[in-house]
């Protein structure tokens, strides 16, 4: 959890007759971060494999036809699991044959559905056009004109003046019937003999004709009534056919989705070949894979190739390019389901390096804690939870945000129980812990303690990172162990003073001495590092040019880092401030509600104001609290230890799917 997944680099070499089977195995496992051969020296030398373009086009066309059928059956194109092996060269024949059988059955019954739906759409569009016109407008008087022609339609509202000018040298009438958004509904009359001029002018005016069917007579109201009756009849017919549609949907849904999945897998495998290497008759695939999957991969590859495969596995530590920092090892997050949505927020700050602490779990837990403390209310937490649940169920794309919102809602509700608040009402049940507005000094102490704890955690993680990344020089600096020790001593005494109101003189003097020693270490951390770890000659260190400048820089750095410690800690006061402002907003909402209720003398208006106030508080405070929490996490917590600069693991399907990087 605190580390990203342990990866190894593999290189697979296989004869070309097995490439489909090998790609199939990799595609099924998904967890391979491909090293694109075209970006390596081998690729630059031209040893890059090619893919069969015509087969790829066949799959594209097949998928297009399949999507149409899925649309006709109103089947959502969800993914389904695929256990069978896919060999692209063979699969296209299989999927195509079965698809054509299904399509023939479906279209025999539902062919009419498309026609009826099209007719319905057309009538609906016509109805929309008629509705633009005034109801009493009568077409009867417009029929059978020998010398005059007319047209009804829309032009940009600003364009009518220009249209008038363009027709000014011809007999004409432009009548504005109304305005629809930014467009004017106009009726234009002109002489038959001039109609070509009219057509040109109307074209220039970006005229959009309403296309009233020929022979329309009677009033607009009457035409609308007829259309509405037609639409009702067609809708009834569509409903009848929709029954058949549902039968087909049940019958073929899984099969069609499986065909789709197979085609996607095959297309992916074909596309992936561009990223492989090829030397003579052998393909070369290279990438990073979780170590735990290596045995499975090896076994599967041996099975599908009948042993005709060479798999080389290298530990990252054994790679010179990795040790020298030329090649980055991608990082694969490895968090439980409830924590993993927060990986997105971690990634927004940066991608940790492979050996760094993977901080998502700390981020997630502290995020929820801080959010709950600032937004503690059972009712509003419940609303956030339900909103999150709605997103979770309805929008696959924003699933992660749905989970985060649900968790925030839960945390908020939990703190609501501790604060005794339901939609701002504090009389429903007693606070299990305390009410923020009743004990502000205590709340401030709590948030400061929390800040110290979180910053301390950041400092510890920084030490772990320094050790893992072998940044020993960092240990003696103000942002390393020396700074951490000074911070902990000062924070400990500060907390003692806050809780008991006194600090012993001996403790102060101890802090003074310790601070003096640690400050000297911090200022001299670079020379000390060279002296202790590198065992350099002290005279050489002192005589080296820039020694004095380095010391002055160190003094400034130490000063800056120490100020930062204080600022970071004080920054956590905002947790109390926002929790109090949350409570204060409720006080304001209830005051307004009381005033309104007194004026209107009705209970309904009171609860209406409370409800609207709650909505505003949820939106406004929810947003502000989220921003503040993210800010605390990024600046106060991550700023202490996070290095970043890593590369995110891209699974095989993402690298080769339609949204893959352009090659």
């Amino acid at each position: 959890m605190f580390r990203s997944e342990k990866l190894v680099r593999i290189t697979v070499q296989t004869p070309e007759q097995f490439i489909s089977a090998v790609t199939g195995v990799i595609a099924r496992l998904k967890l391979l971060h491909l090293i694109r051969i075209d970006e390596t020296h081998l690729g630059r030398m031209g040893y890059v494999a090619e893919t069969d373009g015509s087969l790829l086009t066949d799959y594209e066309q097949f998928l297009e036809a399949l999507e149409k059928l899925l649309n006709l059956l109103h089947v959502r194109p969800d993914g389904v699991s695929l256990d069978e092996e896919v060999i692209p060269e063979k699969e296209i024949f299989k999927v195509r044959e079965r698809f054509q059988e299904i399509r023939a059955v479906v279209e025999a019954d539902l062919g009419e559905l498309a026609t009826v739906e099209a007719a319905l759409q057309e009538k609906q569009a016509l109805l929309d056009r008629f509705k633009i016109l005034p109801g009493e407008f009568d077409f009867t008087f417009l029929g059978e004109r020998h010398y005059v022609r007319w047209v009804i339609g829309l032009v940009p509202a600003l364009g009518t003046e220009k249209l008038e000018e363009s027709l000014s040298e011809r007999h004409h009438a432009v009548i504005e019937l109304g305005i629809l958004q930014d467009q004017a509904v106009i009726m234009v009359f002109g002489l038959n003999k001039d109609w070509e001029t009219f057509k040109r002018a109307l074209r220039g005016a970006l005229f959009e004709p309403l296309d009233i069917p020929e022979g329309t007579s009677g009033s607009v109201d009457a035409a609308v009534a007829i259309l509405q009756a037609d639409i009702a009849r067609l809708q009834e017919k569509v409903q009848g056919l929709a029954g058949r549609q549902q039968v087909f949907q049940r019958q073929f849904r899984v099969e069609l989705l499986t065909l789709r999945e197979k085609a996607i897998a095959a297309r992916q495998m074909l596309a992936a070949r561009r990223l492989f290497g090829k030397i003579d008759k052998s393909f070369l695939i290279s990438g990073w894979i979780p170590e735990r999957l290596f045995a499975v991969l090896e076994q599967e590859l041996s099975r599908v190739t009948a042993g005709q495969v060479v798999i080389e596995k290298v530990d990252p530590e054994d790679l010179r390019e990795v040790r020298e920092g030329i090649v980055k090892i991608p990082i694969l997050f490895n968090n439980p389901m409830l924590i993993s949505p927060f990986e997105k927020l971690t990634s927004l700050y940066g991608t940790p390096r492979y050996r760094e602490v993977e901080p998502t779990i700390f981020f997630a837990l502290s995020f929820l804690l801080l959010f709950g403390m600032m937004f503690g209310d059972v009712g509003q937490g419940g609303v956030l939870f339900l909103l999150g649940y709605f997103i979770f169920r309805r929008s696959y794309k924003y699933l992660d945000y749905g989970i985060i919102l649900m968790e925030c809602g839960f945390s908020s509700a939990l703190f609501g129980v501790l604060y005794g608040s339901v939609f701002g009402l504090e009389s429903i049940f007693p606070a299990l812990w305390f009410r923020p507005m009743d004990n502000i000094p205590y709340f401030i102490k709590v948030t400061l303690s929390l800040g110290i704890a979180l910053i301390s955690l950041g400092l510890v993680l920084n030490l772990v990172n320094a050790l893992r990344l072998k940044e020993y020089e960092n240990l003696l600096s103000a942002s390393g162990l020396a700074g951490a020790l000074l911070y902990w001593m000062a924070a400990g005494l500060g907390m003692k003073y806050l809780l008991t109101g006194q600090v012993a003189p001996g403790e102060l003097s101890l802090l003074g001495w310790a601070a003096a020693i640690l400050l000297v270490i911090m200022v001299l951390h670079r020379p000390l590092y060279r002296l202790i770890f590198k065992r350099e000659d002290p005279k050489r260190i002192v005589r080296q040019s820039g020694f004095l400048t380095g010391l002055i820089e160190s003094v400034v750095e130490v000063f800056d880092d120490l100020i930062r410690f204080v600022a970071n800690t004080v920054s956590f006061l905002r947790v109390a401030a926002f929790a109090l402002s949350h409570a204060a907003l409720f006080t304001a909402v209830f005051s307004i509600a009381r005033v309104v209720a007194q004026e209107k003398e009705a209970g309904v208006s009171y609860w209406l104001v409370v409800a609207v106030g709650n909505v505003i508080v949820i939106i406004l405070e929810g947003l502000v609290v989220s921003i503040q929490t993210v800010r605390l996490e990024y600046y106060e917590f991550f700023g202490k230890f996070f290095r970043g600069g890593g590369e995110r693991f891209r699974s095989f399907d993402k690298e080769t799917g339609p949204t893959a990087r352009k090659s």
Partner: protein
Amino acid sequence: MKGKLLSAEDWHYLLQMRTLDDLLKYLSGTDYARVLARFPGATPPLGELSLALYEDLFKDTARLSKAVPKNGSRLLASLLLRYEAENLKTILRGLWRGSPPQEILALLYPLGSLSRLPVEELLQAGQVTAAVDALPSTVFHGPLRQALAQFQAQGRLFPLEIAVDQAAIEHLGIALKSLSGLDRAKARSIIGMLVDGTNLSWLVRFRHLYGISPEETINYLLVGGRHLSLRDLGRLARTTDLPAFREALPAPYQEVLSEIDHWGQVRIFAERWLVGKLHQVFLSDPFQIGLPLSYLLLKELEVKSLECLFSSMAFGESPAKLVERISVPIGGGVRV
């Protein structure tokens, strides 16, 4: 502010240059040094160089927008809408032709964060109508939707292109409304002259280059000009030859364009007159929006002239010929 523009003396020497290297060497002694510093070593490709000059213009616009009061800032920022319009048209043309996104991207003006166009979404849209749907948060969405019917009826991009151009310039008029007092009067006068210049240029292009009928052309022109009313534009659109056109022009354009002897000169003469007017703004009250507005328009014309100079040098055209096609201060004053 005016001092940052190239002087008549600069142009005198620039037009003497024989090679692009000499030209760039001279320019690196002017305010354009910061642009050229981006291309150390070999002579950069002309396309990249032009785009870098435009980028400098956009940065100037952004800088000045921050330096003026909020209402004025809106107007200055609106100037860039014309370049957003160009980018949008390029994208639509690319989609229409089925060009690859990378190819389209390379042709866009580098507006960066100053642009509100969702370029990625537009490029991914694949089709022109889908691209129009991807624009709801921009000033182009409404006009483009209104032009879709004609686009579909005519089966060509022209109605969409004209809608985009009109939207960009008409938005300047909307931005004017947020100004008041002297600012508004000055800006209205300058924008009005810009609209006049655009109308004259479009009139020539639509009527005599594309052969579009007068009644269609009138609808494509812009309202809100300084000296050219809708009635004037109608009259000009209906003329068929140059003498009649000159005759139909109202003051002051009748005098400004009195010496033209072919259609190609209309734009450049009107532009030179505008340059003169823009320079005059610097002699008036220094605390009004007209100053930054004039500076940006002059800089824009300067960049266009430099772009012309680069191309003509690449094609081996003589500077004497080029002088006829650009509007720059020459010989101690503005050529009018």
